[in-house]
């Protein structure tokens, strides 16, 4: 069980180590950062199928701080570290051409990874707040990394909204400590089961709910996302959209509602309605966008709507669909953002109107974008089809056929907005297309192509994880949530 601490300690140490020794040798920061994320991916891979509790400093729960590993956290760890390895591979050449100061970039990047790994593993409320802040502060700085006017503006907006949300979380932690005199999440769950809710704990729960809905950028708390995600460098956009909103937003919401406070019919109704609203408004806003990355950012809101809809249904099939879609979204959305990065790398623009016929010059980028677009629109046999199918089946099975209809409409609109990308950028041309520039374009370097190819393969093969359904890979993950607070308390406190 001792190895899970390295998932937090290693990136934290390397974040400060790389700027210290990387100044002299040019290639060293790249190698060190990629080695770190590769080791993290291997460590995350080893957590699959294991569970247990690690007490920091040997102080057992409920007094000490504990890290808790179960199937749900290991799923999230796998996603976080896979996408971060792909993003660091992609960063090597991308940053060389478009940005300066690689040392600070890798430092902030690894801090963000450390924060996310910690958030997913921790079993302690205040520790959760600290890791949340590490990940958020690193992401605020990374959004404004280019220091242009619009990037700074997006970063400031994100910073203000994000820190209001964090302050809500801290206030909730203070209220819970004041009422229950404990910070351990399982102990809080146990005390709530014994004594029931009162006004203070209910208020604290609402504050936590609002705080993490903001971090997860669900409508109506989404205002920062369409500005912040496109402004960051492309590999960071892939991290933000692909994993950050899930690790510090959706994951914490799921954990708190299912394992700590307990899910109620009212919460289920809230989640399904927020899910449907995010799904529809996100995709409708995406249709009108002409900026490649901004369009993708609106789709993140929309796809998170699917996840929350599945989670809100609360049936085993719904949970399976929601979590499966969470995994799939991190694969195809990070792939799409990396593709937008390689288009930007060659053409120097994000405006769809200025692009054209890129499929002839950049076959790998065009092919992987096509794969990802088909996945996100839910075309068989790509992974997005299977998870959307499960969510729709779950909605019908739960007797909520209306929700299923909305999910299908959302999927069709998604297809419409992605055919726009294909039409203008890859297989046709926009209004301001410049043939002179186009003649000079070429495929991106090898190191940028590898992540694109790996992620496309995973998108194609992703449906196979569904094999066996609830008896296969997804069984233990769904059981963690269905067990509710009782199982969570049992696995940590042994009561």
């Amino acid at each position, binding site marked *: 069980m001792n190895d899970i601490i390295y998932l937090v300690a290693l990136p934290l140490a390397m974040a400060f180590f790389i700027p210290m020794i990387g100044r002299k040798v040019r290639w060293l920061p790249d190698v060190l950062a990629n080695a770190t994320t590769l080791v993290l991916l291997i460590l995350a891979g080893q957590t699959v199928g294991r569970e247990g509790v690690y007490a920091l400093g040997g102080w057992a729960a409920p007094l000490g701080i504990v890290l808790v590993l179960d199937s749900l956290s290991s799923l999230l760890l796998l996603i976080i570290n896979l996408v971060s390895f792909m993003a660091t591979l992609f960063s090597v050449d991308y940053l060389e051409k478009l940005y300066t100061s690689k040392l600070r970039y890798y430092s902030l990047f690894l801090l963000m990874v450390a924060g996310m790994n910690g958030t997913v593993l921790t079993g302690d409320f*205040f520790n959760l*707040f*600290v890791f949340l*802040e590490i990940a958020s*502060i690193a992401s*605020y*700085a990374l959004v*404004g990394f280019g*220091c*242009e*006017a*619009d990037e*700074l*503006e*997006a*970063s*400031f*907006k994100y*910073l*203000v909204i994000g*820190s*209001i949300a964090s*302050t809500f979380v*801290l*206030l909730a*932690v*203070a209220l819970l*400590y*004041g009422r229950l005199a404990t*910070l351990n999440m399982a102990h809080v769950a146990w005390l709530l089961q014994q004594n029931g809710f009162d006004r203070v704990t209910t208020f604290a729960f609402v504050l936590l709910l609002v705080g993490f809905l903001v971090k997860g950028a669900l409508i109506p708390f989404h205002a920062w996302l*369409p*500005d912040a995600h496109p*402004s960051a460098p492309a590999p960071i956009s892939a991290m933000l959209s692909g994993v950050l909103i899930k690790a510090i937003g959706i994951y914490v919401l799921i954990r708190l509602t299912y394992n700590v406070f307990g899910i109620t019919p009212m919460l289920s109704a809230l989640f399904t309605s927020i899910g449907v609203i995010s799904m529809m408004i996100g995709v409708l*806003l995406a249709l*009108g*966008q002409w900026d490649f990355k*901004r369009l993708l950012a609106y789709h993140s809101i929309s796809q998170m709507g699917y996840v929350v809809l599945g989670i809100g249904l609360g049936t085993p099939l719904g949970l399976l669909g929601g979590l499966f879609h969470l995994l799939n979204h991190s694969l195809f959305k990070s792939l799409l953002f990396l593709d937008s990065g390689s288009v930007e790398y060659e053409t120097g623009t994000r405006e769809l109107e200025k692009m054209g016929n890129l499929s002839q010059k950049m076959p790998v980028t065009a092919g992987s974008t096509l794969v990802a677009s088909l996945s996100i629109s839910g075309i068989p046999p790509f992974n997005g089809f299977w998870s959307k199918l499960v969510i729709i089946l779950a909605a019908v099975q739960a007797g909520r056929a209306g929700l299923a209809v909305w999910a299908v409409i959302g999927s069709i609109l998604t297809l419409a907005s992605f055919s726009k990308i294909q039409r203008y950028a890859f297989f046709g041309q926009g209004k301001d297309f410049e043939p002179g520039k186009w003649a000079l374009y070429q495929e991106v370097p090898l190191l940028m192509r590898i992540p694109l190819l790996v992620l496309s393969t995973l998108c194609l093969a992703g449906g196979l994880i569904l094999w066996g359904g609830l008896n296969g890979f997804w069984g233990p993950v769904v059981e963690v949530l269905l067990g509710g607070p009782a199982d969570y308390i049992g696995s940590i406190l042994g009561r």
Partner: protein
Amino acid sequence: MIYAMCFILFLIGLYGATCKKNIVKIILGLVVMEYAVNLFLVLQGWRKNGQAPILDGRTNLEEFAARAVDPVPQALVLTSIVIGLGILSLMVAIAIRLYERYGTFDVTEMKRLKG
């Protein structure tokens, strides 16, 4: 009573952060909000005529338990003050850069990102 005053301070900060148009005022609003929460947190462990929670060999444990303040909120509040400082310095740095780019602190004039 004192908790209610903390909460009023929190709401003042929230108002400043969300409704003001000047970047400096927004930053101040956030700071006020954060300090209100810090104050609330440290008050959770406060006791009238309490003693510092330091154990040495000669301390009478019963008297200690009856009189000492709770050390946990103090540790938490130190951490959260440091985090607050980190956010504050980042915010001020971004505000300075924004002023260089736009020549104003008014957020209504920064609208390159819309829609």
